[in-house]
């Protein structure tokens, strides 16, 4: 089950956030969605998740729009930057709320809390969580439905070095199980170590899509390609 973005354009009033972008994120691979701040990464993911309506074109998951998925959370797990938590709610309760809405059995809540290393913090209110813990809770929510597709926006944000290494292992493992993993990021070094496939967008336009090795598998090779493609080195 792959993510397919087809000639996607999104205008917010006079601003064109995404213009005619097409790419496919294949199953069984980690796809890095790269671009400078404000390049349209998050908008692309939000269209794919049915939160924002495309002006033209489409983003399809396994061939259908998100809104048409019969059980969306059991098909797609997503973590977006702007997603928040009620500060007064306990971590376990947060996931129980989502599980009830998604039709996911309650035992999954403790499973994913264990998977992201929050088992001991499950009974604490989110108010007292560090940024890294919130990020782990967001990942737990994405994993809750045991989805075939993961769409993650800057998942390494706020994680410490050990957390980043753990995340890398998790993403590789998920892709290894045949899932589609899409990671939007501007941390190139991290993507160079994790991704198989790369999509680069800048100023709302597609600059590159293909296997990572095509533009250099190392962090520095990816960086110079990225800077050239996004026009930062004019």
């Amino acid at each position, binding site marked *: 089950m792959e993510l397919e973005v087809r000639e996607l354009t999104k205008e*917010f009033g006079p601003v064109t956030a995404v213009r005619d972008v097409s790419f496919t994120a294949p199953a069984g691979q980690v796809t890095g969605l790269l671009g400078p701040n404000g390049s349209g990464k998050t908008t692309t993911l939000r269209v794919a998740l049915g939160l924002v309506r495309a002006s033209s074109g489409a983003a399809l998951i396994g061939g259908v729009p998100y809104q048409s998925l019969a059980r969306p959370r059991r098909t797609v797990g997503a973590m977006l930057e702007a997603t928040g938590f009620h500060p007064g709610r306990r971590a376990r309760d947060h996931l129980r709320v989502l599980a009830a809405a998604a039709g996911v059995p309650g035992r999954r809540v403790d499973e994913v809390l264990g998977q992201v290393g929050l088992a001991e913090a499950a009974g604490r209110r989110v108010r007292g969580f560090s940024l890294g813990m919130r990020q782990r809770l967001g990942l737990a929510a994405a994993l809750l439905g045991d989805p075939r597709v993961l769409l993650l926006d800057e998942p390494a944000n706020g994680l410490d070095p050990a957390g980043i290494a753990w995340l890398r292992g998790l993403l590789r493992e998920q892709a290894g199980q045949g899932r589609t993993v899409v990671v939007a990021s501007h941390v190139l070094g991290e993507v160079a170590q994790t991704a198989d496939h790369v999509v680069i967008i800048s100023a709302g336009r597609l600059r590159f899509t293909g296997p990572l090795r095509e533009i250099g598998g190392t962090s520095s090779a990816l960086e110079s390609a990225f800077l050239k493609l996004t026009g930062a080195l004019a």
Partner: protein
Amino acid sequence: MIRSEFRKITSIRSPWLLLAAGPLIVVAGVTGLIQSGGNVHDPAVQRQALAHAGLAALLTLIFGIVAVAGEYRHGSITDTYLSCPDRGRVITAKLAVYGLVGAAAGLVSSAVALAVTAVWWAAKGGSLQLSGTDTWLTLGGGLAACFAFSIIGVGLGALIRNLAGAVAVALAWIALIEGIVGQLAGSGLARWLPFYASEALDRTNIGGTTRLLPQWAGGLVLLGYAAVFAGAAVAITLRRDVT
């Protein structure tokens, strides 16, 4: 969706603290009425005391506003729509759950109004008249107002997604704007405005306006406003981008 919305409310403390203020206001209000010389032998004073049940409607209004605007405030709305991309279903579930809890808060508030009034009447040597339909219409009106305002709140919070903005608009309307609009429109038209209609329904009559609708008509008008707000909330939520 309904179960998820119930869990949202039961897993945090703030809604309960908000709604718990209702009975306290009722107790204080009835007590104040007696302390300021309300005559327990006057049936009109008894009705006035029982009508304090309707004051909790202000709290259910804010309770309803938080249902949607609160989710935008904390950014949890994204997760809610990811679980259920059918936003009409999300808003409908919220209307059902918040309406039910709002009505329950109204029931508690009415029971407290009745209990406190009974206690004061006994203490002052009055005899409480419970046989007349008037008593039950007053208490029932308070309950209905709590229900209607929780629905209006959900609608308002969906239309004005900024929590502080939505609460400010609601309070400004009640405290200020409706009075001004009412004066401009004249009392013949003013009684059709939502807060005047609610005063007819729950018989609080805070503004001292004499020309209110009959209770049943006030109730129907208020339910009409609730239906309009609920419908507008669903319609506008379907079209908006969530960024």
